[in-house]
């Protein structure tokens, strides 16, 4: 018996309605459905709420709990903020796909079993691909296909793992798994594809910046963070996640430093930020898991804000390269200020959300006595300020006068940015209220004079490093090769080489073998063919004569 409407279903329904309705009604659905979903999310009690049968398995489509509620809430909030940002500018099918995509993320959040999780996982893959395609040009189409191929592959790997687990243990319940068998490794690998762990991370900076100015806001929020939730639920404390997370952190920084495309800078910085969360899941203590969940929550808000700021600039100017932009603070002050708040939040400046959430992750490394991890996280915090905190606002809004004098963002985009900027500050100024929503009790106090001073030193001197090395930071009209070079360049080249080899073999066959075979066939035909001496049909009389001759010789031999 269903006592409550599954929150994800409401968004699926509104995604369908968005396609049918027009005008104000559609706007109302796009904006109100996520809020109604948010309300429904808070009606889900703890524990398994719904049980159903799928094939021969008992599945739990809805399982409540603080962690699940936290993630589902931010996904629903994000669906609202993204809709507010784009409902007057985006195509209706982009808004519709974005709602279905958000529904997938919320469905994964509440999934009590791996089958339900997998179904919603694939829903996300399909509709996020549609959102990428809504970029509308050749780049978006190609990137969308590469994105879909990567996620379908990841889905297959995940499915292999889930099926292995079903066969070997008979249990599809979502619980902490040990990395002691082929199937659990497959599940981890499938999730790592979505988390954008190197070397399979290149799909993210390839696809997200190819989407529309509104689409990248949605894309930045759901896929990687549902994967983080899946890691928290399935692999808390898996040691391997610590080096993977650290690799993501530094890979994101280094590649963002080299990048010229504004949204690719932000895309690499998603990998960087998710690295912090993955590392925290690997540490696996209560403080660390709180940190991973809190940081995911805060990250969704400030990263969406940064993508909104970049999206508004691209929407107004049509330009997306650092080399083409600059000096926009003059005419886009709201977009600039909100972008700067997002940049400060991602850099974990005191009084912003990044400070209160990332501190939990660092604290967990301290508690576990992980010196190297702690110091690397601190270095990475400095690096975040460098590659995103200063670089993004500096090159877009300051730097040089590009001569561009675009209008500031449309009112709905401004409203969404102000909403998100306010959320960044609220989470930073009132951490206690936010900590109360986390899965485990928090005793940590982020605002001590010593900690604030340490972070101010760390970040401000990173800023000094940025401006002293500014000549080296100037962007050029270049791209930086990532792992996707393998399937965008190396694989096609190998394919063409293979084709050329096949052509050569075929040519050789035609030149050397075919004439000989033809010659042989002709000679054989001469003797054995219909007109050949041995092959042609004889008249009855001739045959009778030969038979008679044979019989006579037989009789003669016998008689002798």
């Amino acid at each position, binding site marked *: 018996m269903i006592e409550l409407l599954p929150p994800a279903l409401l968004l699926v329904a509104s995604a369908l309605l968005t396609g049918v309705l027009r005008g104000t009604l559609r706007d109302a659905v796009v904006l109100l459905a996520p809020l109604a979903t948010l309300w429904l999310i808070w009606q889900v009690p703890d524990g398994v709420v719904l049980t159903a049968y799928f094939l021969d398995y008992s599945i739990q489509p809805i399982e409540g709990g603080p962690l699940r509620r936290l993630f589902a809430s931010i996904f629903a909030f994000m669906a609202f903020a993204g809709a507010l940002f784009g409902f007057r500018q985006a195509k209706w099918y982009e808004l519709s796909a974005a709602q279905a995509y958000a529904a997938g993320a919320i469905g994964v959040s509440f999934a009590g079993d791996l089958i339900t999780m997998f179904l919603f996982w694939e829903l996300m893959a399909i509709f996020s691909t549609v959102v990428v395609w809504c970029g509308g040009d050749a780049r978006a189409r190609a990137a969308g296909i590469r994105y879909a191929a990567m996620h379908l592959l990841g889905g297959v790997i995940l499915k292999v793992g889930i099926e292995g687990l079903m066969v070997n243990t008979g249990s599809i319940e979502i619980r902490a798994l040990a990395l002691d068998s082929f199937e659990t490794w497959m599940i981890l690998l499938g999730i790592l594809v979505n988390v954008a762990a190197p070397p399979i991370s290149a799909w993210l900076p390839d696809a997200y910046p190819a989407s529309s100015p509104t689409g990248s806001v949605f894309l930045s929020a759901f896929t990687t963070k549902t994967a983080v939730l899946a890691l928290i639920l399935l692999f808390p404390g898996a040691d391997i996640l610590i080096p993977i997370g650290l690799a993501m952190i530094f890979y994101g920084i280094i590649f963002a430093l080299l990048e010229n495309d504004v949204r690719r800078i932000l895309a690499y910085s998603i990998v960087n930020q998710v690295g912090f969360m993955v590392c925290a899941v690997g540490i696996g203590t209560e403080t660390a898991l709180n940190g991973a969940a809190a940081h995911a929550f805060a990250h969704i808000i400030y990263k969406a804000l940064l993508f909104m700021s970049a999206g508004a600039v691209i929407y107004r100017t049509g330009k997306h390269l650092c080399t083409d932009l600059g000096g926009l603070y003059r005419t886009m002050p709201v977009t600039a200020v909100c972008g700067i708040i997002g940049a400060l939040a991602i850099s974990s400046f005191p009084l912003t959300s990044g400070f209160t959430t990332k501190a939990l992750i660092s604290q967990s490394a301290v508690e576990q006595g992980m010196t190297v991890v*702690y110091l690397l996280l601190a270095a990475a915090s400095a690096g975040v300020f460098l590659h995103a905190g200063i670089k993004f606002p500096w090159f877009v809004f300051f730097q040089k006068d590009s001569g561009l004098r675009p209008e500031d963002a449309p009112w709905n985009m401004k409203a969404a940015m102000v909403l998100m900027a306010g959320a960044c500050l609220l989470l930073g100024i009132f951490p206690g209220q936010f900590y109360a929503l986390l899965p485990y009790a928090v005793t940590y106090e982020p605002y001590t*004079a*010593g900690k604030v001073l*340490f972070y101010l030193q760390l970040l*401000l*001197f990173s800023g000094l490093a940025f401006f002293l090395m500014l000549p080296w930071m100037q962007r050029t009209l270049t791209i930086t090769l990532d792992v996707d070079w393998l399937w965008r360049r190396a694989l096609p080249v190998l394919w063409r080489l293979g084709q050329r080899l096949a052509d050569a073999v075929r040519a050789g066959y035609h030149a050397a073998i075919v004439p000989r075979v033809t010659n042989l066939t002709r000679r054989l035909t001469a003797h054995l063919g219909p007109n050949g001496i041995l092959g042609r049909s004889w008249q009855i009389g001739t045959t009778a004569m030969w038979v008679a001759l044979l019989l006579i010789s037989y009789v003669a031999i016998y008689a002798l």
Partner: protein
Amino acid sequence: MSAPNHDHWLSRPSTIRGLWIAFAIVLAFTVAAELFIDIKGYFGVDDWPGFGAIYGFGACVAMVLVAKALGVLLKRRDDYYHD
């Protein structure tokens, strides 16, 4: 940084000089403040005065250098994938 048309107060050279001076004062202040505020170190090294400042600066220089070196290998013209 020196914009050709000084249309906005923020782009005036005098403002930029002022900002640099203010920034330098703030930087000096964050280090000097350690005389009054103790930064609790967890692992020994981070107990040194000015550790945050030196570590932040050093880490950034190192990351920029690594990025520079990697850029030599991996940078291509931006129409690389277009042919």
